[in-house]
């Protein structure tokens, strides 16, 4: 890659730093300008699409959060009334509590476990890697409709349901899984771990690919154990990817919709399965309250933003050079 050699380098045969100083002023300025302009060109596509398709609609949605729809194309500006309603809405707090708990559990499980799996899948010594990777990836391809059918049956309140049969062997009476808060959370976490384990594994796998094998070889020569290798080489090198997975997981946790919807639809008993998105969906399309739905959306956005920004600042996202 670094095989292109210019005339000046060959002629001077000097060290890199001095090579740079000997260059003629005019070409240097051009190169610097190109280097300065280039990043802006690189990020231009994002900026354009972002302004047009993200900022503009989002600003609109924020405006809608201060309105009530009085009919299908008839809006009324109501100031802070939606936000006041939000603060006094018991379902809002239930929903917030649900997604917080859920996010906590998924981060606890869906970051370490896929990482370990990725490490195993990356070792030369693991046989049939392609097969196993495909197996772990398959759940996310199974449509939520189908997954929902299987898991709803598995968590059936009848004694013949899969989970009730298992705990039956332990002498425990059948549980109404989808009917009370804690077991409902368990059911949600189970289907989500099943579904997303492979995906996070893929992210970590690609991160592991960028770690030079030489580092591990050097460590082995120095007599490092697998755990030391993992702690001192793998973990730090895969840090940016871990930040990515953590951020995405927090977002995904708060954006939970499909898995809850297949268990309960938009109405769960006592709102045990309600999430921000199922509640937004219910308000927007089940009850035609687009204004309030936008208010909920804005609230969710602010909360997720705050959490993630605390998280990335603590992890030094912006200093990662």
């Amino acid at each position, binding site marked *: *890659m670094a095989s*292109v050699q*210019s005339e000046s380098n060959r002629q001077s045969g000097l060290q*890199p730093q001095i*090579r*740079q100083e000997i260059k003629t002023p005019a070409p240097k300025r051009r190169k610097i300008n190109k*280097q*300065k302009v*280039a*990043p802006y*060109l690189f*990020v231009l*596509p*994002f900026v354009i*699409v*972002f302004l*047009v*398709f*993200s900022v503009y*609609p*989002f600003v*609109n949605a924020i405006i809608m*959060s201060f309105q009530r729809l009085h009919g299908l194309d008839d809006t009324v500006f109501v100031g802070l009334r939606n936000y006041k309603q939000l603060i006094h809405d018991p379902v809002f707090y239930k929903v917030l509590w649900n997604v917080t708990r859920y996010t906590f559990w998924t981060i606890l499980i869906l970051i370490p476990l896929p990482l370990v799996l990725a490490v*195993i899948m990356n070792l030369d010594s*693991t046989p049939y*890697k*392609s097969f196993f990777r*495909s*197996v772990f990836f*398959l*759940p996310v*391809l*199974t*449509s939520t*409709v*189908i*997954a929902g*059918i299987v*898991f709803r*049956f598995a968590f059936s309140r009848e004694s013949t349901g899969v989970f009730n049969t298992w705990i039956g062997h332990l002498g425990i009476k059948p549980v109404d899984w989808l009917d009370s808060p804690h077991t409902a959370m368990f059911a949600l976490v189970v289907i989500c771990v099943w579904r997303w384990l492979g*995906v996070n594994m893929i*992210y970590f796998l690609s*991160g592991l*690919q*960028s770690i030079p*094998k*030489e*580092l591990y070889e050097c460590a082995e020569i120095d007599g490092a154990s697998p755990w030391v290798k993992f702690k001192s080489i793998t973990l730090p090198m895969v*840090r*940016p990817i871990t*930040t990515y997975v953590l*951020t*995405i997981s927090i977002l995904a946790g708060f954006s939970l919709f499909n898995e809850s919807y297949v268990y309960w639809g938009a109405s769960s008993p006592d709102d045990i399965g309600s999430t921000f*998105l199922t509640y*937004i969906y219910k308000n*927007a399309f089940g009850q035609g309250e687009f204004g309030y*739905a936008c208010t*909920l959306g804005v609230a969710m956005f602010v909360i997720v*933003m705050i959490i993630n920004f605390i998280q990335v600042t603590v992890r030094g996202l912006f200093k990662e*050079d």
Partner: protein
Amino acid sequence: MKARKRISKILTVILLLLVSVIILIPFWFLLISSFKPAADIFGNGLNIKLDFSKMSFENYMKLFHVQDGIFWIWFKNSVVITVIQTVLVLVFCSMVGYGLAQYNFKGRNLIFTLVLVMLMVPGDILLIPMYKLVTNLGLMDSFAGVILPGVVPAATVFFFRQYAIGLPRDYGEAARIDGAGEFRIFAQVYAPMMLPAYGAMTIMTAMGAWNNFLWPLIVMRSDENLVIPAGLLTAMTPYGNNYDIVFSGSMMSIIPIIILFLLNQKSFINGMTIGGIKG
């Protein structure tokens, strides 16, 4: 030493197999149910038994003949949208992520912050404003209207940025000294180093585009422009679910992505080695 390695190999395989079996149960259910009539699947509680006497290709035949063969049109739509979207997303997001990671420039942190911010907006509330916007831009009922709003997704940019930030700047500097242009540095020095990232994002983007059905459904006028997931959902109605089509259709929908995944693994992930930093 060799014996220990052998044993740990076998143990690993056994462990992975066990986990695989559990993970695959829902998929197994899908697979065998796609060959059974719906009454047999639900007639006596969820039926996951392999029963060749009740199994046939009838569901698949039904799937291919529903509404005069509309399934293949859905399939074509899915493929076109997925391919175009995946290619465009990979190209643009890798460029943006690279730009944010390998350069220091004014506004860098601001733009990256915007990337993160956009990640967190719940899509449902944007539906109406996006619909109006796309209408005003004259993109309603077009593939462009479907693909353009999602052509630089924040999450993918974020991933490429994270990947690129772990790459050493030395190579770029060296190439710059040797007179290479900025785009060439990206295309020939760093893009190859990001191959595993491309690999991961290919499969994730393709899968996302393949399974995303709400926005295409909103933008496109007639049901001949539906993609597979939306088309299959038409078989689930308050007046009864046509599981024959749902199961066989879901199987057909998984196959292309699995093929893509295996190809992906072969070319991007397996056997990747990156040269170390010398000195």
